[in-house]
């Protein structure tokens, strides 16, 4: 990467709201319902049907605006965005234009341009009789999704890399999830991100020609797509060429970026105010209700974890922005003896060993209860278990649940508390390998590993490694 150009990235995020019904009609929202069973004259765009805005969708959008520190408009209107596409039955999408519900705002150092409400398009299934996806001659439209409330969040172009874009989007997802306004699931499409990417000479202000990347339906694809596009543009510019303004489709399988056919020439959407909907006048009461519905946001939770539990900023952040981990951590803490001072260790076990074993799964749905993890940490802390055997106990807990103390007793995993027993095992190991013992005596520190190994095997991990090392040194007089 030459230092001469800096990437400038802006994100446009669409969030499906978790209301019961659609944005402008009473059809229910249901992911995975049989095709075309959740429609009505309004969301099918039949002549004469009139839209009426969903109060809860506006409530959710106000919550999002407040949580992101936006300026909330006291007067906001819907516009028609006109274009033809088979997923849009009316020939226009009801959206917002120059009077959006929210402007400005900020999350994790990235400023927001605006947040507005609109309706989702229907779902197009590109499956012809031949079963081919590309080049199929016929598509099927399922209008169940058409009219789902969407909040569009547009950032300022302040992200600097694919990795930065991915990290920031995951913070946004955590924030939206904690608000309870959306499922925010990228695979199911309730959270969607498009990225605008351009390069400019480092330190200059004007933006270069941008391209728009679509179809990045996972955090990993977003990072890879943006990174690939930055490299593509860099190669063009360094080769003396010019970047063309276009919309690109990222194919995660091949990593290729291909030009998408434009939905409308030159984005000429001919916006005009939607005559069928009256303006939204945000009242003090609506604001108060939105404010009252917002619980603790991840950013505030991270600050509390740092302050109250003495966690590092990084650890506090990790637990607070994955709310299931944060909840589990807090439950385990509550199950610990008061003033046990185990918060740090619990955080390490939750974010380390537990996550290493269950990945993205919510630990609350695993077989390990928060109380069991708290007990496990207490046993380690009291040196009744070594870290190694504690990990074994954790494996058993994940398999079949239960109480750590019972598992330890049943399997004979308790640490060797009798020093003379351990000393005898150490003496035997030294006697069994006089070669290694002589090397250690002669000052070869590395040779000690040959003696530690047999001791750990003999004790099946129940001995503390540093204790064993200490005993070997003592017995060898070094």
């Amino acid at each position, binding site marked *: 990467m030459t230092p001469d150009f800096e990437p400038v990235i802006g994100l446009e995020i669409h969030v499906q709201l978790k209301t019961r019904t659609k944005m402008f009609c009473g059809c229910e929202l249901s992911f995975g319902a049989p095709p075309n069973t959740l429609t009505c004259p309004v969301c*099918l765009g039949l002549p004469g049907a009139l839209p009426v805005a969903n109060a809860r969708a506006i409530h959710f959008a106000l919550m999002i605006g407040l949580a992101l520190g936006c300026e909330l408009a006291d007067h906001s209107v819907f516009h028609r965005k*006109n274009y033809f596409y088979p997923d849009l039955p009316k020939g226009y999408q009801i959206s917002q234009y120059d009077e959006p519900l929210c402007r400005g705002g900020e999350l994790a150092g990235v400023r927001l341009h605006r947040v507005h409400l609109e309706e989702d398009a229907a779902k197009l299934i590109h499956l012809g009789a031949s079963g081919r996806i590309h080049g199929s001659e016929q598509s099927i439209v399922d209008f169940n999704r058409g009219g789902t409330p969407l909040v569009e969040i547009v950032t300022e172009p302040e992200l600097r890399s694919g990795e930065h874009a991915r990290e920031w989007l995951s913070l946004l997802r955590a924030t939206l999830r904690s608000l309870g306004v959306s499922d925010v699931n990228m695979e199911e499409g309730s959270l969607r991100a498009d990225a605008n990417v351009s390069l400019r000479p480092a330190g200059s202000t004007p933006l270069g020609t941008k391209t728009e990347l679509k179809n990045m339906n996972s955090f990993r694809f977003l990072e890879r797509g943006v990174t690939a596009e930055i490299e593509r543009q860099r190669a063009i510019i360094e080769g003396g060429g010019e970047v063309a303004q276009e919309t690109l489709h990222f194919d995660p399988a091949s990593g290729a970026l291909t030009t998408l056919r434009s939905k409308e020439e030159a984005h000429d959407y001919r916006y005009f105010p939607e005559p069928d909907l009256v*303006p939204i006048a945000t009242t003090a009461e609506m604001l108060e209700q939105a404010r009252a519905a917002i619980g603790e946001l991840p950013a505030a939770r991270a600050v509390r974890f740092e302050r109250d539990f003495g966690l590092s900023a990084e650890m506090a952040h990790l637990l607070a922005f994955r709310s299931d981990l944060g909840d589990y951590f807090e439950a385990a803490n509550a199950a610990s003896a008061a003033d046990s001072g185990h918060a740090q260790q619990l955080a390490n076990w939750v974010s380390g060993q537990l996550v290493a074993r269950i990945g993205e799964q919510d630990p609350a749905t695993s077989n390990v209860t928060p109380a069991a993890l708290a007990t496990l940490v207490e046993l380690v802390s009291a040196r009744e278990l070594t870290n190694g055997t504690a990990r074994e106990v954790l494996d058993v807990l994940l398999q079949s649940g239960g109480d750590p103390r019972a598992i330890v007793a049943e399997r004979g995993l308790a640490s060797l508390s009798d020093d003379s027993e351990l000393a005898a095992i150490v003496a035997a190991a030294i006697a069994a390998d006089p070669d290694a013992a002589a090397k250690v005596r002669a000052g070869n520190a590395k040779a000690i590993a040959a003696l530690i190994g047999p001791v750990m095997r003999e004790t099946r991990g129940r001995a503390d490694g540093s204790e064993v090392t200490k005993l070997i040194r003592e017995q060898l007089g070094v």
Partner: protein
Amino acid sequence: MIDRDTVLHVARLARLELTDGEVERMVGELGGVLEHIETIAQLDLDGVPPTTHVVEVANALREDEPRASLSRQQALAGAPAVADEGFAVPSPQA
């Protein structure tokens, strides 16, 4: 004023196929409408908010309560073409 190219552009956006005669007529008719707007634009309207609705009403909202949807059969009844439980359309990607 409006020219021939603008009429053709707008017609393309609206998916309208106009004969040469119709294009000429639209140049005249749309031009007349725009001239009228230009007359209005001569008024000093600084500080006057645009009228998007003739009645001053705001917040005509509905509660988030489900209402019965159409059956699939009803929904598809007016479709020009039907396939696989949906509205069949020419593929926009073809």
